[in-house]
């Protein structure tokens, strides 16, 4: 009985991994990283993780959790509450509907898919924030953040692949 309990607890923890690690990614994206020349711009790590799990394990990151992660992103980044939640959910569903294109494909194709997703996310955020602020905001920091996120994409994905292989392959 205790063995079964431990087994079930282990499974529960493993199943919470996509949510937990995405939460950590969002947390890391607001930390003061000792990286010079970034000028205060941080990559959209939460979006990378949501994109990854939507392709490879959507069964472990349901819409409810995507919603919660979006809210956390909004709270931490001082964005209008609901904006990231809306964006994460919409992009999650978009990727989910196209995941057959990415499953089993080479990494560059997955990367190109993310470029499209990140571009949609950046432009939508820029549009909503400009609309809310009543003025067209500068596109320079938006473009920088987009480039930084796309350029760094392999790094967090490599970490996610390692975690998935270590904890989620035996199912």
């Amino acid at each position, binding site marked *: 009985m205790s063995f079964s309990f431990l087994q079930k607890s282990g499974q529960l923890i493993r199943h919470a991994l996509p949510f937990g690690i995405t939460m950590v990614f969002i947390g890391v994206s607001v930390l003061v990283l000792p990286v010079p020349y970034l000028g205060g711009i*941080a990559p959209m790590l939460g979006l990378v993780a949501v994109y990854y799990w939507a392709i490879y394990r959507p069964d472990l990151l349901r819409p409810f959790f995507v919603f919660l992660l979006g809210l956390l992103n909004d709270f931490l980044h001082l964005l209008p*509450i*609901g*904006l990231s*939640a809306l964006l994460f959910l919409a992009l999650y569903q978009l990727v989910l509907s196209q995941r057959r294109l990415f499953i089993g494909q080479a990494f560059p194709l997955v990367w190109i898919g993310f470029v499209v997703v990140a571009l949609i996310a950046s432009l939508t955020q820029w549009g909503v924030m400009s609309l809310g602020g009543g003025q067209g905001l500068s596109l320079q920091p938006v473009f920088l953040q987009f480039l930084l996120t796309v350029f760094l994409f392999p790094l967090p994905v490599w970490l996610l692949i390692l975690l998935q292989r270590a904890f989620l392959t035996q199912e």
Partner: protein
Amino acid sequence: MLAPKRQSGWVYTAALSWRAVVHRFSYALFLSLSLGLLVFGHARPVVMQNARSQIIDTIAPALDVVARPLALVETVTARVQSYRSLLDENARLRTENAGLVRWQNAALALEDENKELRGLLHYKAEPALAFVTARVIADTGGAFVRSLIVTAGRQDGVREGMAAMTGDALVGRVIEAGEWTSRILLITDMNSRLPVVLMGTGDHAILAGDNTGKPHLLYLSQEADVKVGARVMTSGHGGIFPPNVPVGIVSRFEHGEFEVTPLASMGRINQVRLIDFNLTGGAFNPIAAKMQAASFAP
């Protein structure tokens, strides 16, 4: 054998379609909820601001745990860099010191004169300023907002409107004060508007952030004689900050605007001093006010 197979196939298909229905329903539900929150937050920004402060207070300890080792890495990196440039730094400091000794003598003479004049005028000295030193645990380095979360809140005497400084340079002001943490809106944020004066010419302007590292000067008069290299200080207008707090240096003129380089290194702020200048204008939150105005606009 065939009958049970057919039954299990039917059950399996039904279960699959049920899961699809649940997925679609929950997806639509949370999408609507997100949209609802976005609209509600636009109409009631104060409620959302309070909720945000409480949530940041709750998760601050976790952020703090991860931020500490990173701060250590930053310190070690800075130390290694300073060792590498030790000789050059030493020569520069010697020259600077010689100049400063001259300034010290001048300052001492002026201090004596000042004391004498104050005595003659029965001048009442201003009380010492209250300040809190806080560590930065998060930097919302997004493309839309430039703000910091620091480890000091109402319990430490922080209130909205306090000035945030590193060394002697202004970096921003407190816009949200939770119980244990506070949020600082940086002068580089697009919502930041700071009344400033240029040293030397005395020209007044508004320093406006635009989410890049270099805010620019707005509303300069036609006769303004702005020179690259001029020091930018607070003017004291608007009652947000007192006059003559150092902010930055005019660094270049481009696209019809003067850019200002902040004196503080905005990308690498680890500690800030939150100073209470006892002014009332600083309690104004530009982000909340802008949302409030937009929600009541016709």
